[in-house]
């Protein structure tokens, strides 16, 4: 049962990330998502200080806000400061992450959050934190509920904004020419990524969530350029990473999140080989 819940949480997280990741890869925003995942840390802490609890809604809002702020700062440094975009990303996320680490160290006693957890979370603990309805009925791990709701929200977002997201991702000039609000969709996506990052924070940590965002999507993009196929493949890869990562972690007794990223690497290398073979045959 324990393995089942862990794999379920991991799959839900991986699939949510993989779906959003497809758009990030297509929009060349992979490193922006890396920046967001680092810089939500101070947002989580500030939300904690304001509400005094690790209640997930407050943290989702706090981190969503910080995610938007990060992208705004990056754009600002790039546009107004004439700073090249790679340096703008690097300067912004390291500064915010350093601030987060300082806050964690300063308030270590009051907050049940250590720096290891920040980095790679501990998905194996999530099944222990169950939701008791009315104090008695066991409704399963809280993380399952949070991630399910988030996955549904992301699916709804993609379903409702499918055409807009597709157009703004592939040809933003055309999209704005026919009257789509490209910046609005950009920031909606950033908001969705930030919220997913926070929700995934407890399970996989701030840095390895990047692996889940980028790797399945990039691997899917290697095999197909068609968005529906990409989304489908990325979803399958996400589930595969969750299952294979879990058993790899159990086998060598290590972090599940680390094992999932390792499997993502294996998957990518295999896909790279497959795509080369297909290319040389055709």
């Amino acid at each position, binding site marked *: 049962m324990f393995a089942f819940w862990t794999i379920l949480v991991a799959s839900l997280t991986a699939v949510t990330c993989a779906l959003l990741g497809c758009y990030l*890869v297509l929009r*060349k925003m*992979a490193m922006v998502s890396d920046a967001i995942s680092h810089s939500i840390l101070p947002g989580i802490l500030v939300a904690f200080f304001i509400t005094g609890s690790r209640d997930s809604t407050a943290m989702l809002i706090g981190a969503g806000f910080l995610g938007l702020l990060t992208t705004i700062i990056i754009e600002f440094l790039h546009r107004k400061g004439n700073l*090249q975009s790679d*340096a703008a990303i690097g300067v912004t996320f*390291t500064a915010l992450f350093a601030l987060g680490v300082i806050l964690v160290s300063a308030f270590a006693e009051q907050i049940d959050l250590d720096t290891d957890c920040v980095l790679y979370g501990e998905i194996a603990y999530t099944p222990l934190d169950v939701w008791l309805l009315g104090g008695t009925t066991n409704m399963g791990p809280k993380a399952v509920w949070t991630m399910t709701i988030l996955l549904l929200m992301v699916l709804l977002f993609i379903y409702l904004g499918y055409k807009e997201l597709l157009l703004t991702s592939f040809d933003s000039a055309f999209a704005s020419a026919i009257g789509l609000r490209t910046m609005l969709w950009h920031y909606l996506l950033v908001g969705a990524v930030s919220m997913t990052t926070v929700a995934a924070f407890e399970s996989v940590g701030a840095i390895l969530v990047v*692996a889940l965002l980028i790797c399945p999507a*990039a691997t899917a993009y290697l095999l197909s350029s068609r968005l529906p196929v990409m989304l489908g493949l990325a979803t399958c890869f996400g589930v595969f990473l969750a299952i294979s990562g879990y058993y790899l972690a159990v086998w060598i007794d290590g972090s599940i999140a*680390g094992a999932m990223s390792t499997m993502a*690497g294996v998957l990518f290398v295999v896909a790279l080989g497959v795509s080369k073979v297909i290319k040389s045959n055709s």
Partner: protein
Amino acid sequence: MLLLLYSLNPMTDALLKFFTLQDANVRYVVLGTVLLAISSAVVGCFTFLKKKSLAGDAVAHAVLPGICLAFLLAGNKNPWALLAGSFITGWLSLVCIDFITSKTKLKEDTAIGLVLSIFFGVGILLLTAIQHGGNAEQAGLEGFIFGKAAALIGADLVLFMVLSALLLCTVALFFKELTLIAFDEQYAKVIGFPVRWLELLLTTLTVLAVVVGIQAVGVVLMAAMLITPAAAARFWTDKLQVMVVLAALLGALAAVGGCLVSYLHTNMPTGAWIVFLVSLLAVFSFLFAPKKGLIARHYKQKQHKLRFAEENILKTFYHLGEKQKDFFHSYTLNEIVEKRKFESTYLQKGLERLKKQGYVVQQKVGANPAQYLWQFTTEGYERGLRVTKLHRLWEIYLTKYLRIAPDHVHEDAETMEHIITPELEKTLETWLNYPKNDPHNTEIPYR
């Protein structure tokens, strides 16, 4: 005096102890971190100019699996083994990024994110496996993630100091070559520089700087030590030599600050503070640097706008003078607005400024300020004439040399008339051979 301060305040006491470097431990840690910060800042300048800053981030993360593998193979924390391991995987990550970008359709940012997260994931997997494995030697291995400046003592310190010194000497020795490939790789290739070897050198230097630097700030924040000092220094200068020295100074300053904070509050992480302080220095540079800083540029833009407004008003005076056939006739505000639709506050403020500068004079007729009369001075006449001349010369140039229809040239000339320098003015005049009329058949005035 010193004694007095000494007795006054325990804080001053601690500060004094820190800055006089009495404590051998403090001495080592400060010296070590400063040197590490300097070497990464110097190399960072070149990666910054080559727009490869984020690749440095990938190298930093990719060092972790190397450290863990080396530990697994060596069975202990032998600094040479860890160094070799981190160097190899750091290098490998750059090779992977290069391969993915050049051989697949994935873009560079995806490649960097992919390599960064996978290498780091493998590192975390190995690290946790080692920690659960129960090898007593492993304690302190996780220090590489956030750095462990306080542990920079003894033989390790000597090793890293030698490496930093080696790195700085190499940069100094190949400064000219590195500059060339940072700015213009194509040109370097054409004039016969061994570009591939130099690229290799820069890659090696980057990996080396990261491997050395993570001792102080750790893999996660290492990118900042490469990028941030360089980005901050860039706001102050256009000269690479100055930029490198400045970046090194900023890095060193932040390193001392970070050590100080963690000396005063022992539970504070040195690495995170160094990065935070260097980021503050960058924010300061971004805002206040002369010329390139945000405030300086904002001020300059405003000055330009004011000058444009003033010149437009003077030009309107000149046009009115042409109509009146008397350039020193005086006009009310309404008469000026009839000629060109200025917004009234814009016009009034512009006229006030021009009056202060001595280009126009004001005659107070009657009680109503709206009825006051405005008139050119000789200086105003000359400047108005020049702007008008430049406008019309530019229209001629566009129609004659760029073959643009006469009814399309006005807009462009509206901007160019404010920008053309006296040298360009001379060239235009001689080149077009002092034409009499512009494309709309109005006379071009010369002094």
